[in-house]
């Protein structure tokens, strides 16, 4: 047994987190900043933060993840990190030549009280920022929220520090991407194009973290939202925020700074969430949904209907991040499956309320917990008390899956031991069909594995 010390008996904990279902803010900020074209993320803290975040993102994407650090030593921790950040900005612009440096803070720089706004302004005043280049920032203290909060904070920083309202509206709409994969962002762009909606999608990590092998390392890959696009976001007719936790804060900020009205939707994972997304898109441009998209939807519903017997009543445990868990849970319910246990380390009443509302109506007996001590240890204990047929979550779930001998689908962040998430989407009808295929394969492979010889089926 890998997790041999996990007992069945659940005891409330107040101090100890075991096997967390979250990580810290800065990694989310780093990921978001990679979705801006020509941007170098910069970690204002100890070297270890930057190294750990780059390593984790690299393991998840199997791609170069470039980012710099202020390399704090004890001196900087005592006297403040201003000198380090100013020196870093100068070195970065001369050596790595980005268009933008996106600085995020860490628990260290937040604890000593470094003011990123003041330091980045000073860098500009001191002439350390070349003409036409930018230094933006986001405050991302690791002791608040989770990696999702850090993502939201950086996206908000991007929105407020680039978007300008010229007073002349542009015939375009913003789509603010919640935390999703490059493949998902690519799919959002494709669907928008199908519907004829001109969008500014930000951040956009497609063509950044799924770059082709060309024999050359392109430091700033061709993808990412451009500065011009980001600036124009202030003149867009509206914003669609995909995800109430990871994307909505940026939409609110944009409404405040540039008066761009917004609507918040779930990330379009699964049938119903994609329906809402497509309806919203078609509404903003006032066009009918093209037949091709209706056919895509039809193919998904067709499989749901044809394979329903393998899904009905199957008990699922899932863990991950709020903006993924909400539409995923809804999808499982649409599939007639039973979400039995749900855990997310990301705190927040908004998420809690949304999830409770969804469950109340359709699965009131589901165990759900988020925030402090809502960790994989608790989830595992729940699974020991009320076993499940399927586990869905990031790579760390494989330890529970093996111990409990439960089929396992990798979904969320980080996925360290499989590829695919950066290339094949989980959003939209096609993405949901892929997710459904994975669910079916996991369940049906298990049925094949466990079937008595006389019950072994050829046709399923």
């Amino acid at each position, binding site marked *: 047994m*890998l*997790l*041999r*010390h996990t*007992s069945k008996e659940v005891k409330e904990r107040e*101090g*100890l*987190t075991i*096997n*967390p279902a*979250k*990580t*810290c*803010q800065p*990694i989310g900020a780093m990921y978001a900043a990679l979705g801006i074209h020509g941007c170098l993320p910069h970690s204002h803290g*100890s*070297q*270890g*933060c930057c*190294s*750990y975040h*780059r*390593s984790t993102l*690299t*393991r998840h994407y*199997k791609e*170069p993840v*470039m980012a*710099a*650090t202020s*390399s*704090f*030593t*004890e001196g*900087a*921790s005592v006297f403040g990190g201003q000198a380090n*950040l100013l*020196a870093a*900005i*100068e070195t970065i612009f*001369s*050596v*790595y030549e980005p268009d933008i440096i996106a600085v995020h803070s860490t*628990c260290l720089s937040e*604890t*000593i009280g470094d003011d990123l706004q003041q330091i980045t302004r000073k860098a500009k005043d001191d002439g350390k920022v070349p003409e036409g280049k930018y230094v933006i920032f986001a405050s991302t*203290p*690791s*002791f608040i929220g*989770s990696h999702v909060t850090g993502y939201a904070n950086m996206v908000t920083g991007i929105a407020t520090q680039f978007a300008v309202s010229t007073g002349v509206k542009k015939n375009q709409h913003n789509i603010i991407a919640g935390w999703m994969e490059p493949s998902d962002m690519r799919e959002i762009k494709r669907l928008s194009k199908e519907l004829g909606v001109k969008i500014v999608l930000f951040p956009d990590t497609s063509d950044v973290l799924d770059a082709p*092998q*060309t*024999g*050359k*390392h392109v430091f700033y890959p061709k993808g990412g939202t451009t500065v011009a696009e980001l600036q124009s976001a202030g003149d867009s007719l509206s914003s669609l925020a995909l995800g109430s936790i990871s994307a909505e804060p940026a939409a609110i900020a944009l409404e405040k700074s540039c008066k761009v009205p917004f609507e918040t939707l779930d990330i379009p994972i699964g049938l119903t969430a994609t329906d809402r997304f497509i309806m919203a898109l078609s509404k903003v441009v006032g066009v009918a949904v093209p037949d091709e998209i209706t056919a895509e939807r039809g193919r998904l519903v067709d499989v749901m209907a044809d394979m329903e017997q393998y899904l009905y009543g199957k008990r699922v445990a899932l863990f991950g991040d709020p903006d993924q868990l909400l539409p995923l849970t809804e999808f499982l319910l649409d599939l007639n499956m039973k979400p039995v246990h749900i855990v997310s380390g990301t705190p927040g009443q908004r998420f809690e309320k949304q999830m409770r509302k969804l469950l109340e109506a359709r699965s009131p007996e589901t165990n759900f917990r988020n925030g*402090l*001590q809502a960790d994989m*240890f608790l989830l595992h204990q729940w699974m020991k008390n009320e076993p499940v047929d399927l586990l869905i979550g990031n790579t*760390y779930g494989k*330890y529970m899956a093996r111990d409990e001998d439960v089929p396992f689908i990798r979904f969320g962040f980080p996925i360290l031991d499989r590829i695919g998430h950066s290339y094949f989407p989980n959003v939209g009808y096609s993405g949901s069909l892929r997710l459904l295929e994975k669910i079916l394969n996991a369940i049906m492979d298990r049925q094949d594995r466990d079937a008595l010889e006389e019950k072994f089926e050829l046709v399923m």
Partner: protein
Amino acid sequence: MEANIHFPDPSKVREELIQKYPAKVAKKRAKSIIVNDPQIIPEVQANVRTVPGIITQRGCSYAGCKGVVLGPTRDIVNIVHGPIGCSFYAWLTRRNQTRTESLMDANYIPYCFSTDMQEENVVFGGEKKLKVAIQEAYDLFHPKSIAIFSTCPVGLIGDDVHAASKEMREKFGDCNVFGFSCEGYRGVSQSAGHHIANNGVFKHMVGRDNTPSVGKYKLNLLGEYNIGGDAFEIERIFEKCGITLVASFSGNSTVSQIENAHTADLNVILCHRSINYMGDMMETKYGIPWMKVNFVGAESTAKSLRKIAEYFGDEELKARVEEVIAEEAPKVQAVIDEIMPRTKGKTAMLFVGGSRAHHYQDLFAELGMTTVAAGYEFAHRDDYEGRHVLPSIKIDADSKNIEELKVVADPELYNPRKTEAELEALKEKGLEINGYEGMMKQMTKKSLVVDDLSHYESEKLIEIYKPDIFCAGIKEKYVVQKMGIPLKQLHSYDYGGPYTGFEGAVNFYKDIDRMVNNPVWKLIKAPWEKAGNGAGLSASYVTQ
């Protein structure tokens, strides 16, 4: 050996590496980029601060302490006191394998423990939450030991992890609780954390159990972390030779082994950088000499086994070691004979760790490959130039912050295993007793040595030298591979291994052969991108 490799003019290379830096940065970096001469061994600037903004391979003190040294011991509950990230990122990512005797034995390696410090803990102090966490860990698991690791904010807000640990240790009575002040900002790299870890393990673990260990040739294995099963292979060889492994620091180890380590008669050191402090301290307190060995590379393994036998000076052991080598060597040679024609004459670059960039050169040499440039991520001058430079290393502000334990001979347990004269005689025979010659003595003349290589420098080096393989870590892996050069990870072994000993050498040869000769590197260009392949020619079928 002077290889038949064409070296670009190394002084020009150095110029090119630093030309893009701002003047002050260039001046600093120039001191860490050195053209090697094994005869005179020039000075390398090492273990100094990385310039802010430079994309470095380095991590932090916490990573060196919790991740490297303490991580591999399976039955300690390691609680990270701080915000959630630090514990999350160090969770299982170093591939420290461990093997318990039964399913009942403690193994906390697959677990991640954190106090998940919140804003209110930063503002009002986190000691209370830490003590609650320790109590909960004790109640849930009843472990032999609980170790506490401080992350950056902990030091700044003044939480006293040592006092909290002491209080809980005394409260429990049957659980050894101890803390490490390994905040990420200490020192200039992981190296500071190694030292802090050595101090803590020495103070709180070594010497707690005086039960005499059993065996004729008893040693401890220091600086081996069982990545990819390295320790299992060394254990296999020791067992075959009849050598008793009392404790490992810390691959595949347990608390009780480490507590009993001082009953061994020799410490052999693999990774000098991360554990040499322990060797020194155990020698002073208990009279156990340490000796530098290397189990990376088949020849190095044989050599190291012979040195161990020589140390014990026992003819029976010497004979047994020769038998084992004679049994193992032909299998290794057969693989070399098969692979060598495909690897001979190829070049490698190694920029990694604090000893790996040295040790792995032996494996490449066994494949007929030359190391054209190498450097460490977090080593000190002694790891490059040899321990004789230790007295001349300047102590700067960053290293001054790391505690030097004052160790004296234990009034009861000090027992010099060898006399001064015996040790001198062993040194005469070429045994690196309490010594290490460093990396540069072994590297070719005119090869390049670069400490704390930056991303920019690595791209330049690859452009200039076009090596056949590059060795580094996960952050460099896909950058280098995008340039069409295979990268071998020498922290995680690309999830392979073991690479130590005889079986490990064979694994490594096969991996390198597979990597440098993989057809994929020739498939990068599409047919239409290749010159003279008809790109842009007129269509074969037209409608007109």
